[in-house]
Protein backbone atom coordinates (compact mmCIF):
# COMPACT_ATOMS: atom_id res chain seq x y z
CA UNK A 1 0.00 0.00 0.00
CA UNK A 2 1.54 3.26 -1.05
CA UNK A 3 1.24 6.24 1.20
CA UNK A 4 -0.14 9.38 -0.30
CA UNK A 5 2.76 11.09 -1.98
CA UNK A 6 0.84 14.35 -2.04
CA UNK A 7 1.32 15.28 1.57
CA UNK A 8 0.90 19.01 1.08
CA UNK A 9 -2.78 19.11 2.16
CA UNK A 10 -1.84 17.44 5.44
CA UNK A 11 0.89 19.99 6.10
CA UNK A 12 -1.41 22.86 5.23
CA UNK A 13 -4.12 21.50 7.51
CA UNK A 14 -1.63 21.30 10.38
CA UNK A 15 -0.44 24.84 9.76
CA UNK A 16 -3.99 26.19 9.69
CA UNK A 17 -4.70 24.45 12.96
CA UNK A 18 -1.66 25.87 14.74
CA UNK A 19 -2.39 29.33 13.30
CA UNK A 20 -5.98 29.22 14.57
CA UNK A 21 -4.83 28.19 18.04
CA UNK A 22 -2.34 31.05 18.05
CA UNK A 23 -5.03 33.57 17.09
CA UNK A 24 -7.31 32.46 19.90
CA UNK A 25 -4.48 32.70 22.44
CA UNK A 26 -3.59 36.22 21.23
CA UNK A 27 -7.16 37.42 21.48
CA UNK A 28 -7.57 36.08 24.98
CA UNK A 29 -4.48 37.85 26.22
CA UNK A 30 -5.48 41.08 24.50
CA UNK A 31 -9.07 41.18 25.72
CA UNK A 32 -8.85 39.28 29.00
CA UNK A 33 -11.89 37.39 27.77
CA UNK A 34 -12.32 33.80 26.81
CA UNK A 35 -15.69 34.47 25.23
CA UNK A 36 -16.06 37.22 22.64
CA UNK A 37 -18.91 35.88 20.54
CA UNK A 38 -21.82 33.58 21.46
CA UNK A 39 -20.34 30.62 19.60
CA UNK A 40 -17.29 30.71 21.89
CA UNK A 41 -19.60 29.51 24.67
CA UNK A 42 -23.33 29.65 23.95
CA UNK A 43 -24.44 28.86 27.50
CA UNK A 44 -22.13 31.41 29.06
CA UNK A 45 -23.24 34.01 26.54
CA UNK A 46 -26.90 33.42 27.37
CA UNK A 47 -26.16 33.68 31.09
CA UNK A 48 -24.21 36.87 30.47
CA UNK A 49 -27.37 38.52 29.09
CA UNK A 50 -28.99 38.13 32.51
CA UNK A 51 -25.77 39.00 34.32
CA UNK A 52 -25.39 42.23 32.37
CA UNK A 53 -28.92 43.39 33.12
CA UNK A 54 -28.69 42.34 36.74
CA UNK A 55 -25.35 44.09 37.18
CA UNK A 56 -26.83 47.31 35.79
CA UNK A 57 -29.78 47.03 38.13
CA UNK A 58 -27.65 46.36 41.20
CA UNK A 59 -25.61 49.48 40.42
CA UNK A 60 -28.78 51.53 40.16
CA UNK A 61 -30.27 50.03 43.32
CA UNK A 62 -27.11 51.00 45.14
CA UNK A 63 -27.48 54.57 43.92
CA UNK A 64 -31.14 54.56 44.93
CA UNK A 65 -30.24 53.34 48.40
CA UNK A 66 -27.76 56.17 48.79
CA UNK A 67 -30.16 58.88 47.71
CA UNK A 68 -33.10 57.50 49.70
CA UNK A 69 -30.90 57.09 52.75
CA UNK A 70 -30.04 60.75 52.46
CA UNK A 71 -33.63 61.88 52.46
CA UNK A 72 -34.64 59.46 55.21
CA UNK A 73 -31.80 60.59 57.44
CA UNK A 74 -32.65 64.18 56.69
CA UNK A 75 -36.29 63.60 57.67
CA UNK A 76 -35.24 61.75 60.78
CA UNK A 77 -32.99 64.58 61.78
CA UNK A 78 -35.78 67.12 61.20
CA UNK A 79 -38.09 65.12 63.42
CA UNK A 80 -35.33 65.01 66.01
CA UNK A 81 -35.32 68.80 66.07
CA UNK A 82 -39.09 68.79 66.32
CA UNK A 83 -38.93 66.51 69.35
CA UNK A 84 -36.45 68.83 70.99
CA UNK A 85 -38.61 71.82 70.23
CA UNK A 86 -41.73 70.14 71.57
CA UNK A 87 -39.90 69.15 74.74
CA UNK A 88 -38.95 72.78 75.21
CA UNK A 89 -42.50 73.86 74.58
CA UNK A 90 -43.79 71.46 77.21
CA UNK A 91 -41.45 72.90 79.81
CA UNK A 92 -42.57 76.41 78.85
CA UNK A 93 -46.13 75.30 79.29
CA UNK A 94 -45.46 73.76 82.66
CA UNK A 95 -43.81 76.96 83.74
CA UNK A 96 -46.65 79.07 82.49
CA UNK A 97 -49.27 76.95 84.22
CA UNK A 98 -47.69 77.77 87.49
CA UNK A 99 -50.05 80.28 89.07
CA UNK A 100 -47.18 82.36 90.36
CA UNK A 101 -46.20 83.63 86.90
CA UNK A 102 -46.74 87.28 86.05
CA UNK A 103 -48.79 88.16 83.04
CA UNK A 104 -45.85 89.71 81.25
CA UNK A 105 -43.78 86.60 81.79
CA UNK A 106 -46.65 84.54 80.47
CA UNK A 107 -46.65 86.84 77.43
CA UNK A 108 -42.97 86.24 76.99
CA UNK A 109 -43.52 82.48 77.14
CA UNK A 110 -46.30 82.81 74.61
CA UNK A 111 -43.84 84.47 72.24
CA UNK A 112 -41.36 81.66 72.79
CA UNK A 113 -43.95 79.01 72.02
CA UNK A 114 -44.99 80.99 68.94
CA UNK A 115 -41.37 80.98 67.84
CA UNK A 116 -41.21 77.22 68.43
CA UNK A 117 -44.27 76.78 66.23
CA UNK A 118 -42.59 78.74 63.46
CA UNK A 119 -39.45 76.65 63.67
CA UNK A 120 -41.43 73.37 63.73
CA UNK A 121 -43.24 74.48 60.60
CA UNK A 122 -39.85 75.17 59.07
CA UNK A 123 -38.82 71.61 59.97
CA UNK A 124 -42.04 70.29 58.48
CA UNK A 125 -41.08 72.08 55.28
CA UNK A 126 -37.62 70.47 55.13
CA UNK A 127 -36.44 69.74 51.64
CA UNK A 128 -33.66 67.39 50.59
CA UNK A 129 -32.09 67.88 47.20
CA UNK A 130 -34.95 70.08 46.11
CA UNK A 131 -37.76 67.78 47.22
CA UNK A 132 -40.01 68.52 50.23
CA UNK A 133 -39.90 65.55 52.54
CA UNK A 134 -43.18 65.85 54.39
CA UNK A 135 -45.72 66.69 51.70
CA UNK A 136 -46.64 63.14 50.88
CA UNK A 137 -45.83 62.73 47.20
CA UNK A 138 -46.26 66.42 46.53
CA UNK A 139 -42.63 67.30 46.77
CA UNK A 140 -42.39 70.43 44.68
CA UNK A 141 -44.19 72.90 47.00
CA UNK A 142 -43.88 73.47 50.75
CA UNK A 143 -46.33 71.20 52.58
CA UNK A 144 -47.33 73.79 55.20
CA UNK A 145 -48.34 77.31 54.24
CA UNK A 146 -49.64 80.12 56.36
CA UNK A 147 -53.43 80.21 56.42
CA UNK A 148 -55.67 82.49 58.39
CA UNK A 149 -58.54 80.08 58.07
CA UNK A 150 -56.67 77.30 59.84
CA UNK A 151 -56.80 77.16 63.69
CA UNK A 152 -53.06 76.54 63.89
CA UNK A 153 -52.44 79.29 61.38
CA UNK A 154 -51.02 76.79 58.88
CA UNK A 155 -52.73 74.71 56.27
CA UNK A 156 -51.40 71.42 54.86
CA UNK A 157 -50.83 71.74 51.16
CA UNK A 158 -49.50 68.26 50.51
CA UNK A 159 -51.22 64.91 50.02
CA UNK A 160 -51.51 61.67 51.92
CA UNK A 161 -49.63 59.54 49.38
CA UNK A 162 -46.47 57.61 50.05
CA UNK A 163 -43.77 56.51 47.65
CA UNK A 164 -41.85 53.28 47.74
CA UNK A 165 -38.53 53.22 46.00
CA UNK A 166 -37.04 50.17 44.33
CA UNK A 167 -33.81 49.23 46.09
CA UNK A 168 -33.71 45.56 45.15
CA UNK A 169 -35.23 43.10 42.72
CA UNK A 170 -38.03 42.26 45.12
CA UNK A 171 -37.62 45.13 47.51
CA UNK A 172 -39.40 48.46 47.51
CA UNK A 173 -38.88 50.55 50.60
CA UNK A 174 -41.42 53.15 51.71
CA UNK A 175 -39.50 56.35 52.00
CA UNK A 176 -41.81 58.94 53.49
CA UNK A 177 -44.65 59.67 55.86
CA UNK A 178 -47.04 62.39 54.79
CA UNK A 179 -46.92 65.60 56.83
CA UNK A 180 -50.54 65.40 57.80
CA UNK A 181 -49.80 62.11 59.46
CA UNK A 182 -47.01 63.62 61.54
CA UNK A 183 -47.68 67.25 62.22
CA UNK A 184 -51.38 67.84 61.93
CA UNK A 185 -52.92 64.52 62.80
CA UNK A 186 -55.81 63.93 65.14
CA UNK A 187 -53.69 61.39 66.95
CA UNK A 188 -51.30 64.14 67.90
CA UNK A 189 -51.64 67.59 66.43
CA UNK A 190 -48.22 69.12 66.69
CA UNK A 191 -49.01 72.41 65.03
CA UNK A 192 -52.45 72.73 66.55
CA UNK A 193 -51.30 71.97 70.05
CA UNK A 194 -48.44 74.45 69.86
CA UNK A 195 -50.73 77.11 68.51
CA UNK A 196 -53.25 76.44 71.32
CA UNK A 197 -50.51 76.62 73.95
CA UNK A 198 -49.34 79.96 72.65
CA UNK A 199 -52.90 81.25 72.80
CA UNK A 200 -53.44 79.86 76.30
CA UNK A 201 -50.26 81.47 77.58
CA UNK A 202 -51.41 84.69 76.00
CA UNK A 203 -54.73 84.50 77.83
CA UNK A 204 -53.06 83.71 81.15
CA UNK A 205 -55.70 81.11 82.11
CA UNK A 206 -53.86 78.47 84.13
CA UNK A 207 -56.37 75.74 83.47
CA UNK A 208 -56.22 76.37 79.75
CA UNK A 209 -52.45 76.45 79.86
CA UNK A 210 -52.35 73.14 81.66
CA UNK A 211 -54.72 71.53 79.18
CA UNK A 212 -52.76 72.92 76.24
CA UNK A 213 -49.48 71.70 77.75
CA UNK A 214 -50.89 68.16 78.04
CA UNK A 215 -51.88 68.29 74.38
CA UNK A 216 -48.36 69.31 73.42
CA UNK A 217 -47.01 66.48 75.52
CA UNK A 218 -49.28 64.01 73.76
CA UNK A 219 -48.14 65.37 70.41
CA UNK A 220 -44.56 64.88 71.48
CA UNK A 221 -45.17 61.20 72.21
CA UNK A 222 -46.96 60.84 68.93
CA UNK A 223 -44.20 62.36 66.91
CA UNK A 224 -41.66 60.15 68.63
CA UNK A 225 -43.67 57.13 67.61
CA UNK A 226 -43.94 58.37 64.02
CA UNK A 227 -40.24 58.94 63.96
CA UNK A 228 -39.64 55.21 64.47
CA UNK A 229 -40.68 54.71 60.88
CA UNK A 230 -37.68 56.63 59.68
CA UNK A 231 -35.33 54.77 61.99
CA UNK A 232 -36.62 51.47 60.67
CA UNK A 233 -36.35 52.64 57.09
CA UNK A 234 -32.75 53.62 57.70
CA UNK A 235 -31.98 50.22 59.14
CA UNK A 236 -33.57 48.48 56.21
CA UNK A 237 -31.66 50.60 53.77
CA UNK A 238 -28.35 49.95 55.49
CA UNK A 239 -28.74 46.20 55.36
CA UNK A 240 -29.83 46.40 51.75
CA UNK A 241 -26.68 48.37 51.04
CA UNK A 242 -24.58 45.57 52.49
CA UNK A 243 -26.54 43.00 50.54
CA UNK A 244 -26.06 44.94 47.31
CA UNK A 245 -22.33 45.15 47.88
CA UNK A 246 -22.22 41.40 48.19
CA UNK A 247 -24.38 41.03 45.08
CA UNK A 248 -21.94 43.21 43.15
CA UNK A 249 -19.08 40.93 44.14
CA UNK A 250 -21.09 37.85 43.22
CA UNK A 251 -22.06 39.21 39.82
CA UNK A 252 -18.50 40.28 39.05
CA UNK A 253 -17.10 36.90 39.92
CA UNK A 254 -19.85 35.20 37.93
CA UNK A 255 -18.86 37.35 34.97
CA UNK A 256 -15.23 36.33 35.30
CA UNK A 257 -16.08 32.66 35.54
CA UNK A 258 -18.40 32.89 32.54
CA UNK A 259 -16.33 34.90 30.09
CA UNK A 260 -13.10 35.94 31.76
CA UNK A 261 -9.71 34.40 31.47
CA UNK A 262 -6.95 34.01 34.01
CA UNK A 263 -4.19 36.25 32.70
CA UNK A 264 -1.33 34.04 33.85
CA UNK A 265 -2.82 31.03 32.11
CA UNK A 266 -3.58 33.06 29.00
CA UNK A 267 0.02 34.28 28.81
CA UNK A 268 1.34 30.74 29.12
CA UNK A 269 -1.05 29.50 26.44
CA UNK A 270 0.09 32.25 24.10
CA UNK A 271 3.71 31.30 24.59
CA UNK A 272 3.02 27.63 23.84
CA UNK A 273 0.93 28.46 20.79
CA UNK A 274 3.69 30.64 19.37
CA UNK A 275 6.26 27.88 19.83
CA UNK A 276 4.04 25.26 18.23
CA UNK A 277 3.23 27.52 15.31
CA UNK A 278 6.90 28.29 14.64
CA UNK A 279 7.73 24.60 14.72
CA UNK A 280 4.95 23.76 12.27
CA UNK A 281 6.14 26.45 9.89
CA UNK A 282 9.75 25.31 10.11
CA UNK A 283 8.79 21.70 9.41
CA UNK A 284 6.66 22.72 6.46
CA UNK A 285 9.45 24.85 5.05
CA UNK A 286 11.82 21.91 5.20
CA UNK A 287 9.54 19.40 3.60
CA UNK A 288 7.66 21.22 0.93
CA UNK A 289 10.04 22.40 -1.77
CA UNK A 290 12.48 19.49 -1.80
CA UNK A 291 11.93 16.98 -4.53
CA UNK A 292 14.48 14.78 -6.15
CA UNK A 293 14.37 16.98 -9.20
CA UNK A 294 16.37 19.57 -7.31
CA UNK A 295 19.17 17.04 -7.24
CA UNK A 296 19.04 15.86 -10.86
CA UNK A 297 21.95 17.22 -12.79
CA UNK A 298 21.66 17.84 -16.48
CA UNK A 299 23.53 15.30 -18.58
CA UNK A 300 26.83 16.58 -19.87
Amino acid at each position, binding site marked *: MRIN*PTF*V*PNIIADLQQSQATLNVALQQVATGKSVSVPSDNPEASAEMVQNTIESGEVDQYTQNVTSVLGSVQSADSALGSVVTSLTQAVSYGAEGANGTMSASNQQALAQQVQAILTSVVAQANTSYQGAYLFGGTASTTPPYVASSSSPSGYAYNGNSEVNSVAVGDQLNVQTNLPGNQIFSNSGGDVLGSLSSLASALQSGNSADIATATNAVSAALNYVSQQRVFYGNAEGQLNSQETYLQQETVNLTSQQTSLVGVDMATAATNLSSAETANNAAMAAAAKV*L*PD*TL*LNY*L*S*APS
Partner: protein
Amino acid sequence: MIALDVQDRKIELEQHLQLLRSLACELERAMKAVAQNSLPELEDSIANQQVLSARLSKLANGLSRDFRETTAPSLAHLDRDLMRQIGVASSTLQKLNQRYSALIQHSSRSVELMVSLFSSFKGQFQEGSAPRLKHQTWSCQI
Protein backbone atom coordinates in the same frame (compact mmCIF):
# COMPACT_ATOMS: atom_id res chain seq x y z
CA MET B 1 50.59 -22.73 -19.94
CA ILE B 2 50.38 -26.44 -19.47
CA ALA B 3 48.14 -27.97 -22.02
CA LEU B 4 44.87 -29.07 -20.58
CA ASP B 5 43.97 -32.64 -20.28
CA VAL B 6 41.56 -33.67 -22.97
CA GLN B 7 38.83 -34.52 -20.52
CA ASP B 8 39.19 -31.23 -18.67
CA ARG B 9 39.07 -29.39 -21.90
CA LYS B 10 35.84 -31.03 -22.87
CA ILE B 11 34.26 -30.03 -19.60
CA GLU B 12 35.37 -26.48 -20.02
CA LEU B 13 34.05 -26.32 -23.57
CA GLU B 14 30.72 -27.54 -22.37
CA GLN B 15 30.75 -24.89 -19.71
CA HIS B 16 31.57 -22.36 -22.39
CA LEU B 17 28.57 -23.42 -24.39
CA GLN B 18 26.29 -23.29 -21.38
CA LEU B 19 27.48 -19.82 -20.46
CA LEU B 20 26.93 -18.55 -23.98
CA ARG B 21 23.38 -19.82 -23.95
CA SER B 22 22.67 -18.51 -20.46
CA LEU B 23 23.99 -15.09 -21.35
CA ALA B 24 21.82 -14.97 -24.46
CA CYS B 25 18.84 -15.88 -22.29
CA GLU B 26 19.65 -13.05 -19.91
CA LEU B 27 19.82 -10.57 -22.77
CA GLU B 28 16.35 -11.62 -23.84
CA ARG B 29 15.13 -11.31 -20.30
CA ALA B 30 16.60 -7.82 -20.04
CA MET B 31 14.92 -6.70 -23.26
CA LYS B 32 11.62 -8.03 -21.97
CA ALA B 33 12.13 -6.15 -18.70
CA VAL B 34 12.66 -2.87 -20.58
CA ALA B 35 9.50 -3.47 -22.57
CA GLN B 36 7.56 -4.11 -19.37
CA ASN B 37 9.00 -1.03 -17.74
CA SER B 38 10.03 -3.36 -14.96
CA LEU B 39 13.04 -1.81 -13.36
CA PRO B 40 13.75 -4.49 -10.72
CA GLU B 41 13.61 -7.18 -13.38
CA LEU B 42 16.03 -5.25 -15.56
CA GLU B 43 18.44 -4.59 -12.72
CA ASP B 44 18.37 -8.23 -11.74
CA SER B 45 19.07 -9.38 -15.29
CA ILE B 46 21.95 -6.96 -15.66
CA ALA B 47 23.47 -8.22 -12.44
CA ASN B 48 23.29 -11.76 -13.78
CA GLN B 49 24.75 -10.62 -17.08
CA GLN B 50 27.70 -9.10 -15.27
CA VAL B 51 28.46 -12.35 -13.52
CA LEU B 52 27.95 -14.48 -16.60
CA SER B 53 29.98 -12.29 -18.92
CA ALA B 54 32.82 -12.10 -16.43
CA ARG B 55 32.97 -15.88 -16.14
CA LEU B 56 32.61 -16.26 -19.86
CA SER B 57 35.44 -13.85 -20.54
CA LYS B 58 37.76 -15.65 -18.21
CA LEU B 59 36.86 -19.07 -19.55
CA ALA B 60 37.05 -18.03 -23.21
CA ASN B 61 40.44 -16.40 -22.71
CA GLY B 62 41.73 -19.52 -21.02
CA LEU B 63 40.44 -21.80 -23.77
CA SER B 64 41.76 -19.56 -26.50
CA ARG B 65 45.25 -19.58 -25.02
CA ASP B 66 45.03 -23.29 -24.59
CA PHE B 67 44.21 -23.82 -28.24
CA ARG B 68 47.07 -21.60 -29.37
CA GLU B 69 49.53 -23.47 -27.29
CA THR B 70 48.32 -27.00 -27.98
CA THR B 71 49.66 -29.03 -30.88
CA ALA B 72 47.27 -30.10 -33.57
CA PRO B 73 47.18 -33.81 -32.86
CA SER B 74 46.04 -33.27 -29.27
CA LEU B 75 43.16 -31.29 -30.53
CA ALA B 76 42.06 -34.10 -32.83
CA HIS B 77 39.97 -35.60 -30.08
CA LEU B 78 37.82 -32.51 -29.83
CA ASP B 79 34.13 -33.13 -30.18
CA ARG B 80 33.26 -31.57 -33.50
CA ASP B 81 29.62 -31.32 -32.77
CA LEU B 82 30.35 -29.48 -29.54
CA MET B 83 32.52 -26.97 -31.31
CA ARG B 84 29.87 -26.45 -33.92
CA GLN B 85 27.29 -25.78 -31.25
CA ILE B 86 29.59 -23.30 -29.60
CA GLY B 87 29.96 -21.49 -32.89
CA VAL B 88 26.21 -21.27 -33.35
CA ALA B 89 25.62 -20.14 -29.78
CA SER B 90 28.29 -17.53 -30.06
CA SER B 91 26.88 -16.18 -33.27
CA THR B 92 23.38 -16.04 -31.78
CA LEU B 93 24.68 -14.22 -28.75
CA GLN B 94 26.43 -11.62 -30.87
CA LYS B 95 23.37 -10.89 -32.91
CA LEU B 96 21.22 -10.63 -29.81
CA ASN B 97 23.82 -8.36 -28.36
CA GLN B 98 23.48 -6.06 -31.32
CA ARG B 99 19.72 -5.82 -30.86
CA TYR B 100 20.15 -5.36 -27.15
CA SER B 101 22.75 -2.68 -27.67
CA ALA B 102 20.45 -0.76 -30.00
CA LEU B 103 17.58 -0.95 -27.50
CA ILE B 104 19.75 0.20 -24.62
CA GLN B 105 21.12 3.12 -26.60
CA HIS B 106 17.68 4.21 -27.73
CA SER B 107 16.16 3.98 -24.26
CA SER B 108 19.16 5.64 -22.74
CA ARG B 109 18.74 8.63 -25.03
CA SER B 110 15.06 8.94 -24.08
CA VAL B 111 15.85 8.92 -20.38
CA GLU B 112 18.58 11.50 -20.79
CA LEU B 113 16.21 13.71 -22.74
CA MET B 114 13.66 13.60 -19.94
CA VAL B 115 16.27 14.23 -17.29
CA SER B 116 17.59 17.27 -19.11
CA LEU B 117 14.08 18.63 -19.61
CA PHE B 118 13.23 18.34 -15.94
CA SER B 119 16.56 19.69 -14.81
CA SER B 120 16.11 22.77 -16.98
CA PHE B 121 12.79 23.55 -15.30
CA LYS B 122 13.94 25.53 -12.30
CA GLY B 123 10.50 26.36 -10.99
CA GLN B 124 8.70 24.93 -8.04
CA PHE B 125 7.04 21.60 -8.20
CA GLN B 126 4.19 21.70 -5.76
CA GLU B 127 2.49 18.40 -5.41
CA GLY B 128 -1.24 18.86 -5.22
CA SER B 129 -3.77 16.33 -4.11
CA ALA B 130 -5.75 14.72 -6.85
CA PRO B 131 -8.76 16.88 -7.52
CA ARG B 132 -8.24 19.80 -5.25
CA LEU B 133 -5.33 22.19 -5.71
CA LYS B 134 -4.99 24.07 -8.93
CA HIS B 135 -1.41 24.62 -9.99
CA GLN B 136 0.54 25.41 -13.11
CA THR B 137 0.87 22.34 -15.28
CA TRP B 138 3.40 21.96 -18.00
CA SER B 139 3.70 18.93 -20.18
CA CYS B 140 6.28 17.60 -22.53
CA GLN B 141 5.92 15.51 -25.61
CA ILE B 142 8.39 12.76 -26.23
